[in-house]
């Protein structure tokens, strides 16, 4: 089955066209390359010629601390069973990445979705700016890390009121504070560790 030779071959192909910043082997069937933004198109077309004909996934990750978006392309070769992740960083402000639909036509809707959820522009994709999944969206793109869905939900959708019917028998008792403390911890776990 797929041997180390195969991985070496892919490494050669990628290193020929792109500057590899980081190589990673995740498991027997999966490797990852971190490359520069400008090399993505050449790498993808070289891999497509070498047999990685299927684009499995395309999306982005928001690294808000370093103010970058990371684009991810996952390719698969059915004959040699090896998944390749190609990752590239782009700037978060006015994020832009040339479309890859000339190489993989199947990327069209993934790019539209990434535009909708992250606000990344894809010049070259004919209608990436059209709304796809959201309708009349009136806030920042929802998958960015600085968007808080619970705040949006509280603002827009009325919530059902439930009465809190525990009583504090003894005001000196610490159990009331304990309940408050527990609620605070539950809230922090629920909101992804972010402070409200």
């Amino acid at each position, binding site marked *: 089955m797929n041997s180390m030779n195969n991985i070496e071959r892919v490494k050669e192909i990628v290193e020929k066209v792109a500057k590899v910043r980081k190589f990673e082997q*995740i498991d027997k069937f999966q490797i990852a390359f971190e490359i520069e933004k400008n090399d993505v198109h050449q790498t993808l077309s070289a891999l497509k010629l070498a047999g990685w004909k*299927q684009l499995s*996934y395309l999306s982005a*990750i928001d690294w808000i601390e370093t103010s970058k978006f990371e684009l991810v392309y996952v390719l698969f070769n059915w004959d040699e069973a090896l998944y390749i*992740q190609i*990752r590239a960083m782009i700037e978060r402000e006015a994020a832009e990445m040339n479309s890859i639909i000339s190489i993989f036509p*199947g990327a*069209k809707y993934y790019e539209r979705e990434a535009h909708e959820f992250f606000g990344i522009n894809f010049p070259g994709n004919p209608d990436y700016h059209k709304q796809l999944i959201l309708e009349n969206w009136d806030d920042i793109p929802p998958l960015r890390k600085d968007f808080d869905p619970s705040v949006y939900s509280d603002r827009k959708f009325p919530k059902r009121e439930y009465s809190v019917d525990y009583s504090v028998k003894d005001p000196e008792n610490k159990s009331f504070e304990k309940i408050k403390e527990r609620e605070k911890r539950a809230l922090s776990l629920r909101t992804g560790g972010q402070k409200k």
Partner: protein
Amino acid sequence: MKEMKLFLGPQHPGMHGNASVHMFVDGDIIKRSYLLPGMLYRGFEKQMERKLWVNNIALIPRVCVPEPDINEMAFASGAEKLLKLEIPERAHWIRMIILEFARISAHLMAYGGLGGPTGNYTLMYHAHADRNNILDIFEKITGARVYHQYIVIGGVRQDLPKGIEKDMHTFLDSLESRLKEYRDLGIDNASIIKRIKDTIMLPAEVVWELGVTGIGMRSAVNKAYDIRKVAPYARYDQVEFEVPVSDYSDARSRLDIKIKEVQQSINIIRQCLEKMPEGPVRVKPARGQSMRWTVPKGHVYSMVESSRGEFGYYMVSNGGTHPYRVGVRGASYPQGLLGIEKYLPGTRIDDAALWVDTMGICSPEIDR
């Protein structure tokens, strides 16, 4: 003739799930068409970032409704790859049993769904009755009919109950004996064979352009392109099964492959029940640690062969208690969005429902 606008869905008996196909038609030939997704959008990927790794187990089955277990499997195996966690041997086999039952149930639902667009309701009644038996077996194993939350990080939640093997064998025997009946009612039925033969074909060249996987791909390219074979997960490399293929992809041959896959799944479950070792089924975190469970940094793409094709989770951890980003690759993404836009034009209006049914388009996993 003037071009006319026409909806198929979201409120339509021939439509599976809450999605809408918008068509511009001339006579009864579709000129342009596209899918309008998003009616089941729940902000899943955002919700997952806000829940603990363990809590996500409760959320993920809801990504795909007819076949929820693939989500649990993809998520759990992805997290295990990041954690470098070896799970007990018995858990692998139990997972396979659950996944194959889920595959049978999804195939039966899709095969019975043929009743909607073609008016063959007998088939639908038979298929749903058998599917209900699978749900009963799931209820005995996991406690729930539809959303099981059974495959968790580190194995499965609990061992199989005593005596369940007998129920499984009874069901598998009865289903196997009825497969010929299913063929007679559906794909070999003279009254609908004209309806499904040579309609909505998918040529092999188009497959690569669209990126279609699963039955749609295998029915066109005549190769055993199945993740269970080419990149086996769990213990699929230790069971014997065939991957049914064909080189002529019309509605009939895709349904034919579905029924053949049900037979293969039955064989796999039987082998699993035979080969399954005894032992523990779960690696548990230390007491009190489950809420503080952190996963090491890394990116992983974990994939499962679902009844519709390659289903994957792209998971990123930054070393914290919550996933940093989880992306879902719905198996019906290519055939649902690009397939309807590029490939449906030129066919007839009533074939749109057949495309949705036989290619297996599951709208919740497109929207998330």
